[in-house]
């Protein structure tokens, strides 16, 4: 029997056909090959895990995904004593002139040596940790990128890409000698590219277009005040509640702007009330000119405390700041008076209305982000990745809930958000895909219901 006749024999062909079927079926059952990670996903891994051979901190030590990529005293209170945030308490080489543990724990303030490292004992600032959301919309200016609280937070070319280099030198070092190759290593070009891509991917990717068709009476009035150039005057510097100057006033390419709004002149600042050493912060440049850059407001309500020194806890207090002497007498306040003929002078109901508007747009952004995270989770093939994204969607939902409830706003939306949060929690606990998908579907429906309570479609 030749090989060819053997192949044609039906009896002999049967096992081969069966084997072929088995192989084909096995191939069909194999999960799809995982796609290579995107640059932003590589950046996320670096952001959350890379210590750069330093004191154990990562970017995510201070910019917590669970805390809107920022850090609040309430979140700090949940951390274990050996969290790398507290290296100044655990590493004797960093016990002096690296952090102030009391101000860190009570007010989430960290040490920044914005004006130099020659006199660590006396020359430092205490600053809050800004969130890293919506950076794509908030750091460009006609004078180049504005990063950090005063717009000059990045070494090298001052770009977001270079930011991590300065952060490693300031915050990751093993000792205050700050010797590259000894106390830390500097990020590579590839790492900087990935970190930039990740940070730009976070949060909102485009500006709002005000006015929005808000349903809430108070929030709708707050939006009117916000947009009124003779009353709230907010939209001049926070165009569309973002971080950029109004192009009708500042020109089309103004982008993010720096102002001295007098925050440093506020009386009874919490950090100063502690009696700890808190040198004045001179803002942009060396020596500083007293200016700080304009933060985005869409993400404000769930990312307090507010201003560079965490001096005001509530969003209502932050709006009221612009009524006070510190702002009115500041260079920016005087400029506004000269330009408009009056200071900002909102009464309590109007302050609350503007704050209600900020709370509602924050909640809308939480809902948008939550739905996007759920969608990304559905597309993810890796179970741990899916869980991480669903968890973050839960955080967004919880934030929306707290932001609205904290202002006594939209109880029906709050109830829907509570339902969405519960469904997401249940989805995370489910081992069976079908039940998990059912929970996720219910969460999506509840989030959409909450959104419908806040704004007309």
């Amino acid at each position, binding site marked *: 029997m030749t090989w060819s006749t053997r192949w044609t024999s039906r009896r002999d062909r049967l096992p081969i056909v069966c084997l072929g079927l088995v192989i084909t079926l096995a191939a069909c059952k194999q999960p799809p090959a995982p796609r290579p990670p995107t640059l932003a996903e590589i950046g996320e891994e670096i952001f959350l895990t890379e210590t750069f051979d330093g004191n154990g901190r990562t970017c995510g030590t201070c910019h917590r995904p669970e805390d809107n990529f920022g850090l609040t005293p309430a979140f700090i209170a949940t951390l274990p004593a050996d969290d790398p945030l507290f290296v100044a308490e655990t590493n004797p080489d960093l016990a002096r002139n690296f952090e102030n543990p009391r101000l860190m724990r009570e007010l989430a303030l960290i040490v920044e040596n914005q004006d130099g490292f020659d006199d660590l004992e006396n020359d430092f600032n205490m600053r809050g940790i800004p969130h890293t959301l919506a950076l794509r919309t908030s750091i460009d200016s006609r004078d180049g990128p504005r990063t950090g609280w005063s*717009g000059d937070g990045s070494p090298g*070319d001052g770009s977001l890409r270079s930011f991590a280099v300065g952060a490693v030198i300031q915050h990751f070092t093993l000792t205050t000698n700050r010797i*590259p190759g000894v106390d830390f290593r*500097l990020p590579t070009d590839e790492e*900087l590219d990935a970190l930039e891509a990740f940070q730009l991917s976070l949060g909102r990717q485009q500006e709002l277009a005000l006015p929005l068709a808000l349903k809430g009476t108070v929030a709708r009035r707050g939006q009117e005040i916000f947009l009124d150039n003779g009353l709230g005057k907010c939209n001049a510097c926070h165009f569309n509640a973002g971080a950029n100057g109004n192009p*009708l006033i*500042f020109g089309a390419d103004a982008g993010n702007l720096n102002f001295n709004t007098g925050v440093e002149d506020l009386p009874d600042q919490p950090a100063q009330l502690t009696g700890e050493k808190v040198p004045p912060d001179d803002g942009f440049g060396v020596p500083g000119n007293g*200016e700080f850059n304009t933060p985005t407001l869409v993400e404000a309500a769930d990312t307090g405390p507010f201003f560079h020194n965490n001096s005001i806890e509530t969003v209502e207090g932050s709006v009221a700041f612009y009524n006070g002497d510190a702002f009115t007498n500041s260079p920016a306040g005087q*400029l506004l008076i000269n330009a408009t003929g009056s200071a900002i002078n909102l009464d309590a109901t109007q302050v609350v209305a503007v704050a209600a508007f900020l709370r509602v747009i924050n909640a809308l952004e939480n809902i948008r982000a939550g739905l996007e995270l759920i969608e990304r989770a559905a597309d993810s093939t890796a179970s741990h990745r899916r869980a991480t994204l669903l968890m973050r969607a839960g955080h967004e939902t919880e934030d929306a809930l707290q932001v609205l409830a904290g202002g006594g706003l939209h109880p029906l939306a709050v109830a829907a958000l509570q339902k969405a949060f519960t469904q997401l929690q249940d989805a995370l606990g489910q081992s069976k895909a079908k039940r998990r998908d059912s929970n996720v579907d219910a969460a999506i429906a509840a989030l959409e219901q909450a959104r419908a309570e806040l704004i007309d479609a």
Partner: protein
Amino acid sequence: MAYLIFDRMQRLRCWLLVLLLAAPTVAAQQTTERFIPIGQSPGISGQLSMMGTVHAFDASSGNLQVDGRDGRKTYRVTAQTRIWIDRSATRQASLVGDRGDLASGRLVEVMHRRDDPQLADWIKLEAN
């Protein structure tokens, strides 16, 4: 009423433009730059700064001549120019230098001011 609003907007625009024109334009952080070794400044080294060796420094005029790959270039060094000694090769902390450190033959990286390419913003010198 519409006129009044327009007038307000115009006035606001004028005043704020005055403010903007007076604002500084350099946005890079100046302090952590000191700890970045020669040739490793992100977005600067190999793109905007010049690396080379000090040919000569005239303390009276403040002119610094640097020989680099593309020839010789002259920068003005002022009291605002920051000078650092990079000792990372010997695993030591960087030092603040001064004009007296600008000796001929030393490896140097010079970054100019963005608004004046002849004016040295910062200078990093390799340690002796």
